[in-house]
């Protein structure tokens, strides 16, 4: 009993870590490699979650939907929708640098959230979308979680391989060149604006996919899920802590932060009853403290960005 419970909890954590790792990977493309400060992760997360929800959920009165497409169509749709939304946003906002871009993207995410909260015909406004099918959701509790974890792990592994490949390709080197010295890259004839837009769209599509996976796991999506604290800043903490510029770092960061976030509550539960309510705030403090420590003692993150030049074979590096 006790062991099954623990295993079950581990499965659940695995699923959440997988979903957050996808978001962190998406952010890594934007920040770690292209240097784009996107503080609007929640917006793309929401677009993905709602798109997939609308495409796959059964008919409900008063809102768009009732297509009941298979879940993978919904997930692909989520990526496409997030990419489509990212395109005009990137077109307009990417002219801003660093903190200005952050402000613009926070604003965009807020606009998306308000549209979702207000458009009853599209998203059922504040009430959210329910009865979203979960793949293998009809299985018993444990098996269903296992199946979903397998799917999430597969999706994450696929995304990781593709992103990793892209980073080691000439494209990745070019992105880092643009990030580190824009003028030099421009002088070498690189189309900086276009490449940035590419990275922005590519990363946003992954965030949309993460949102879709989240909605199907919970079988529901409500505007409360797109709160910037849990959908934007937590992802940032994961990437910074894991090591921006390193895909494995992004995944490790997601695992470490979510584990501490979740497990620390069990630890604080051991405090006496009268502190039960107050103790819940300790984990907020823990996450903040951890970020401070990492930034102070290890600003490059747990797994720093690899120095790729030395690691690549001469053959690969001479192609650029």
């Amino acid at each position, binding site marked *: 009993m*006790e062991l099954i*419970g623990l295993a079950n909890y581990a499965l659940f954590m695995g699923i959440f870590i997988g979903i957050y790792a996808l978001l962190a990977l998406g952010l890594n493309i934007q920040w770690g490699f292209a240097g784009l400060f996107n503080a609007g992760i929640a917006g793309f997360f929401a677009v993905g979650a709602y798109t997939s929800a609308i495409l796959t959920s059964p008919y409900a009165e008063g809102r768009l939907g009732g297509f009941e497409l298979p879940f993978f169509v919904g997930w692909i749709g989520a990526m496409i929708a997030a990419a489509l939304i990212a395109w005009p946003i990137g077109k307009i906002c990417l002219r801003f640098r660093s903190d200005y871009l952050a402000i613009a993207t926070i604003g965009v995410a807020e606009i998306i959230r308000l549209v979702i909260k207000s458009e*009853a015909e599209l998203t059922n406004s*504040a009430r959210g979308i329910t*009865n979203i099918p979960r793949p293998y959701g009809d299985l018993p*509790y444990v098996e269903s979680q296992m199946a979903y974890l397998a799917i999430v792990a597969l999706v994450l592994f696929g995304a990781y391989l593709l992103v990793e490949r892209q980073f080691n390709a000439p494209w990745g080197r070019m992105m880092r060149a643009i990030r580190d010295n824009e003028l030099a890259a421009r002088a070498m004839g690189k189309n900086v604006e276009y490449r940035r837009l590419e990275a922005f769209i590519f990363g946003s599509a992954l965030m949309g996919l993460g949102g879709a996976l989240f909605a199907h796991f919970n079988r529901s999506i409500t505007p409360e899920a797109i709160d910037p604290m849990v959908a934007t800043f937590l992802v940032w903490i994961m990437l910074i802590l894991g090591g921006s510029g390193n895909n494995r770092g992004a995944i490790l960061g997601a695992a470490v932060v979510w584990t501490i976030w979740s497990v620390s*509550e069990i630890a604080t539960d051991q405090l006496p009853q009268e502190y039960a309510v107050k103790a819940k705030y300790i984990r907020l403090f823990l996450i903040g403290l951890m970020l401070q420590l990492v930034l102070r003692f290890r600003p490059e993150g747990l797994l720093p960005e690899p120095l790729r030049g030395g690691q690549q074979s001469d053959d690969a590096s001479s192609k650029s």
Partner: protein
Amino acid sequence: MKSKVLAIAGGLLAATALASAPAKAADVKIGLIGGVSGPIAAMAPAMIDAAQLAFQQVNEQGGILGGDKLVGVVGDSACSPQGGTDAATKAVNIEGVVAIVGPHCSGAVLAAAGSVTIPAGITIVTPSGTSPEITGLKDNDTVFRTVPSDDYQGRALARTLKGMDYNKVAVSYINNDYGTGLANAFKSEFEAQGGEIAGYAAHEDGKASYRSDLAELAKGGADTLVIFDYGDGTGLTILRQALENGFFEKFVGGDGMKSDAPIKELGADNLTTFVASSPVGEKSKSLDMFNEAFKASGGDPSAIFVTTSYDAAFLLALAVEKAGGDKAGVSAALREISNGEGEPIMPGEWKKAKELIAAGTAIDYKGAAGDENFDANGDVPGTYALFKVAGDGFETITEMK
């Protein structure tokens, strides 16, 4: 350096994992999942205290089942789906709870039910998730609530107003699940009764001025403004600005508006045309018994959702006793102990209930917030009344049906 940092990170993880040694096995646990941190952080502690009071009474009067201790395990849903599923997973798998009171916010209820408690077959009773979406969940009869759906209040208010000759109204509601749920239900019922909605708009929380929103609503020519918002928040601003500018003559509020803040801030003289609906704990003996007990334990019985929290906790304790501690039987037992038939049980009467259950007699819990007899969807009908301002407080005009 690298290995050192990894070691520190690993150590942190190990430390948190080690600290989580399971508690004594003899305790029967019920989860109390609430929005401890997050947007309803101000309301959650009182709600959790009320639920703990129920467990305390159980323990003082002989404990549960074979004299075991009933323990409430507090979890933090942070009012978000992410937090709700996380807290519910821990409660179900790590703590091994037999049932859960909560989560508090509708979004967290939907997510926790969909991904954790329905698949795991754990019964949950939310004391404050008012979204109409909860009604339609495919839940194998495991999701209940002790608070009426917003849908119910909205419809009752529409019928009552129509009966009182309000024929043309404008509706302004706060843009969240509470406001939207109430406003939708109100609109459809008011129109079905032959009334006219001459303006219907959501507003965002926390702006300094709503004059343009109000001017827009007033264009429809209605003399009454229906406000679904909170009287100590944005609702107060709207009410003040509508009064100052004379946009409307009469005002109607939902239960969120029945707060002392408008009377204190605007003065009772200015609110003669203001009425508000609110759930009433039906002036019952049950409510008095709860109020007394909660006051004695240091709580404030007039805090919002404390009665429903208490009822949810006490009902689940009764259901667990009835089901003999079997998780799978809790939802069926919950229906048996509160279906309007049997020996009435008041809040705090654990000993009496325990004896009756042992003897196989049917019991019927009469809750502090109402009779708490669940319908087919696990919802309860509410008891609402319409209030007007009198002196420094509110007084009842009529019951709402």
